[in-house]
């Protein structure tokens, strides 16, 4: 307290940067007013021709979320290499990025241990941490400048007229285009979590590994959770109820896939729509507050995805109404 009292609060140099950016934003928004972009749920294809065609999958295009996936993978690999390099040096005191990663993993491991128990924490922790890190990096890279704003122009019905900034570089300007001459933008990169394929894949992975861990922990007895015939013959009345409850458990297992994937996709896609709509309505400064909100949502959703995976896996290791665990 004394130290804070003795030092007078000063704004420092940062306020001038903020003021500079606000002024630049006002100038930019007046020179080139932002247009309301075309919003599409499915990821946009970057190329005219499909990458490959197969009878099962149909035409597979190179989409902008695939490029975003490459960015996410590269960032994760760089973190891995940095931590590996720090471990190789042999110093026990981690510094820089490896220190941050160690602090994060320690918190996550303690969380896993407190809800899954020391015995299964080692098995569950890798799934928890890798899902959380992937979703976290995917959600945070979505907020980087350049996502959805730099890309290829293509002809479209509800397009906007274009204007040449530099030779070969165009920008969309506000106004009505002549029929058949309007252009729309397809960004090179688009947030990875705004693609339903990514979230469904993660959800399938998470739910499938939950079943696998359940079988590892309990053997064949794990499946009596779903098709419960253990009490059907000894107590027919309650046995029938147990059987019906088991079927409900089976349905809820599929509902988990739906809720996992749509929770992440819905949150992130809502963020994208909010960001572009606010950007086209109030182009100055207000978007920054929305970005802050999106940052927070991204953190929470990554944590929730990982945490729920961990909790479901911990539940799968414990028998239902277990005799030896209580």
């Amino acid at each position: 307290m004394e130290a804070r009292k003795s030092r007078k609060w000063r704004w420092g140099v940062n306020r001038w940067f903020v003021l500079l950016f606000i002024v630049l934003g006002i100038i930019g928004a007046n020179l080139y007013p932002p247009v309301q972009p075309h919003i599409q749920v499915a990821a946009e294809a970057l190329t005219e021709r499909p990458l490959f065609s197969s009878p099962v999958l149909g035409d597979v295009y190179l989409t902008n979320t695939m490029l975003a996936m490459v960015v996410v993978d590269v960032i994760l690999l760089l973190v891995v290499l940095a931590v590996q390099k720090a471990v190789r040096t042999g110093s026990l005191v981690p510094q820089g990025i490896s220190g941050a990663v160690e602090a994060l993993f320690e918190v996550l491991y303690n969380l896993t241990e407190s809800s899954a128990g020391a015995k299964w924490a080692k098995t569950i922790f890798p799934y928890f941490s890798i899902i959380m890190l992937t979703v976290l990096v995917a959600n945070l890279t979505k907020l980087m400048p350049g996502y959805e704003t730099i890309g290829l122009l293509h002809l479209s019905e509800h397009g906007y007229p274009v204007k040449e900034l530099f030779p070969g570089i165009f920008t969309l300007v506000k106004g009505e285009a002549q029929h058949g001459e309007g252009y729309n933008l397809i960004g090179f990169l688009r947030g990875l979590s705004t693609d339903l394929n990514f979230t469904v894949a993660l959800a399938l992975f998470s739910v499938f590994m939950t079943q696998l861990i359940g079988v590892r922990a309990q053997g064949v007895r794990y499946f009596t959770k779903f098709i419960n015939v253990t009490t059907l013959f000894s107590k027919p009345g309650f046995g029938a109820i147990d059987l019906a409850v088991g079927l409900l458990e089976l349905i809820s297992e599929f509902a988990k896939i739906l809720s996992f994937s749509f929770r992440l996709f819905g949150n992130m896609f809502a963020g994208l729509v909010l960001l572009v709509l606010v950007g086209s309505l109030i182009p100055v400064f207000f978007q920054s507050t929305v970005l802050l909100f999106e940052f927070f949502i991204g953190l929470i959703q990554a944590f929730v995805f990982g945490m729920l995976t961990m909790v479901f896996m911990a539940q799968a290791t414990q028998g239902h109404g277990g005799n030896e665990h209580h």
Partner: protein
Amino acid sequence: MTGDIVLAAKFVGAGLAMIGALGAGIGIGLSVQGALQGMARNPDTYGTLLTNMILGIAFSEAIAIYCLVIAFLMLFVL
């Protein structure tokens, strides 16, 4: 004419779909209320209560997100 009616129906449908957010709002309010009362009575449990509260909020929020996804589907896909 029919195109206009279809467009209007899209917007009305998207608005109606978002009624479901009502339940999620009530649910989130109830869970935060319970967690805050627990924290006020027993401040030591702040950490665990906060984690569980955020998890519960995410569960109830998912309901609102389903409505939002349906509304987006009506607006941008159909």
